[in-house]
């Protein structure tokens, strides 16, 4: 009886979970939910393991969640099935190779980045500066890690799994965004209230741009022209002009905004305290709506395009 009810519940859940495709996903840490945002509205939320902090996606639409207190990574397949990859670490930051064959995990209190195979086997690890926060992939073979208590961004050679260099940044680097077109890396510094701009091709710091209070999330528009930074303590988003390297607009959003993602002419901002997602029209730079989501949204991931039918 009970197992029957459970099975029906599971089927209902799977039926409600849309198949993969271009889309935007939000992880709610307190509520342990993953929500798909579709056509500007939250369409389906599914339960996941406790306290997911960061969500990342690969090109095939698989979603990856880190569980710092649960010592695991969840992998949600496009069909809705979930695998848990246990990891003896405090997993926080995530980056995944587009083909999903390698998962990079920051171990917050372990001061290292771990490379996992798709089935969760540890393939290597690299020591980092203190408190590795967010990770982002750069050019082939390069991974960047925000070293929150090191005032630095570490450069990891992903073949050797070794830290091969670093950039000095502001105080409390937390979030990262890469712009492959301009070979730039944007680093949000929580405590110095600014964004460090790094020229990754030249290997040097290009500029430091003053932002609002506690920059906590960052995303670059696909054309690389604008950088959106969530100012966590100011309940707004600062818009940086990538050419001028200065804030040219601010957009009020919900309380304690954190993750920012961009899809199809809109920016989406996870408002951790307000339990909703702000939608910003990039043409007008105005918040057009707020989508309620489960408690504690922090991180967003974009699945860029529909996977091939054969997959």
């Amino acid at each position: 009886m009970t197992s029957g009810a459970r099975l029906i519940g599971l089927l209902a859940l799977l039926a409600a979970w849309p198949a993969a495709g271009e889309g935007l996903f939000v992880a709610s840490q307190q509520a342990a939910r993953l929500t798909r945002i579709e056509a500007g509205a939250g369409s389906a939320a599914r339960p996941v393991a406790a306290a997911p902090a960061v969500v990342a996606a690969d090109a095939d639409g698989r979603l990856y969640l880190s569980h710092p207190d649960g010592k695991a990574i969840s992998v949600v397949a496009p069909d809705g099935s979930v695998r848990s990859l246990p990891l003896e670490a405090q997993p926080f930051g995530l980056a995944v190779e587009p083909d999903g064959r390698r998962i990079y995990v920051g171990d917050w209190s372990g001061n290292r980045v771990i490379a996992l195979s798709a089935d969760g086997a540890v393939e290597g690890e690299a020591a980092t500066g203190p408190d590795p926060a967010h990770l982002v992939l750069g050019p082939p073979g390069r991974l960047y890690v925000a070293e929150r208590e090191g005032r630095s961004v570490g450069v990891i050679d992903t073949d050797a799994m070794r830290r091969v260099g670093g950039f000095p940044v502001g105080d409390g680097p937390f979030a990262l965004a890469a712009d492959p077109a301009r070979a730039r890396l944007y680093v949000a510094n929580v405590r110095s209230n600014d964004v460090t701009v790094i020229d990754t091709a030249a290997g040097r710091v290009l500029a430091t741009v003053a932002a609002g209070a506690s920059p906590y999330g960052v995303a670059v528009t696909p054309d690389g022209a604008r950088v959106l930074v969530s100012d966590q303590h100011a309940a707004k988003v600062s818009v940086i002009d990538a050419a001028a390297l200065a804030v040219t607009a601010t957009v009020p959003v919900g309380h304690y905004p954190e993750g920012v993602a961009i899809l199809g002419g809109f920016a989406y901002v996870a408002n951790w305290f307000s339990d909703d997602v702000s939608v910003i029209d990039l043409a007008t730079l105005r918040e057009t709506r707020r989508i309620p989501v489960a408690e504690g949204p922090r991180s967003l991931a974009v699945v860029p395009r529909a996977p091939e039918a054969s997959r």
Partner: protein
Amino acid sequence: MIRTLATLALFLSAGTALAHGPTPQKVAGTVTIKAKPDAVWKVVGDFGGIAAWHPDVAKAEATGGNAEGATRKVTLKAGGTLVEGLDEWKGPERTYSYRMSDPDLTALPVSSYSATLTVTPDGDGSRVEWMGRFYRGDTGNEPPETLSDEAGRAAMNRYVGDGLKGLKAKLEGGPTP
């Protein structure tokens, strides 16, 4: 013994300095007060004046007034000191935001926090909302009970709750809790 304790306290402070774990927690409290928003703001809006209304606070030493970057060093009656910096202060909107500069686990068992206090009209009176985000005292994977998420929540909820009760009592002229 005293020396050992002092060393331990220093060690704890240094070990968790600016720590910022992966699992943030919420704290939020509201109170309605039978006084006009401007009157409430006059009391609560002065960043350095917290000792005048928060019953848990013994004294506050402030620098910088209500300008961005101002600081206050808040000494609690129960012991411990909170050093806080002002991020934003908006008089016309009756709101300010601040964050902890240095953790002191003897004051509050949390490693990092930020908070916003806002006064809004509510009928003939006012509503005060005090909300924040914090991280447990030990941000590692196996925190001791005294530095857990639960311990942090209990302490922060108590601190905010006591403060709002004290503010209401001061403005409405009732007995101080």
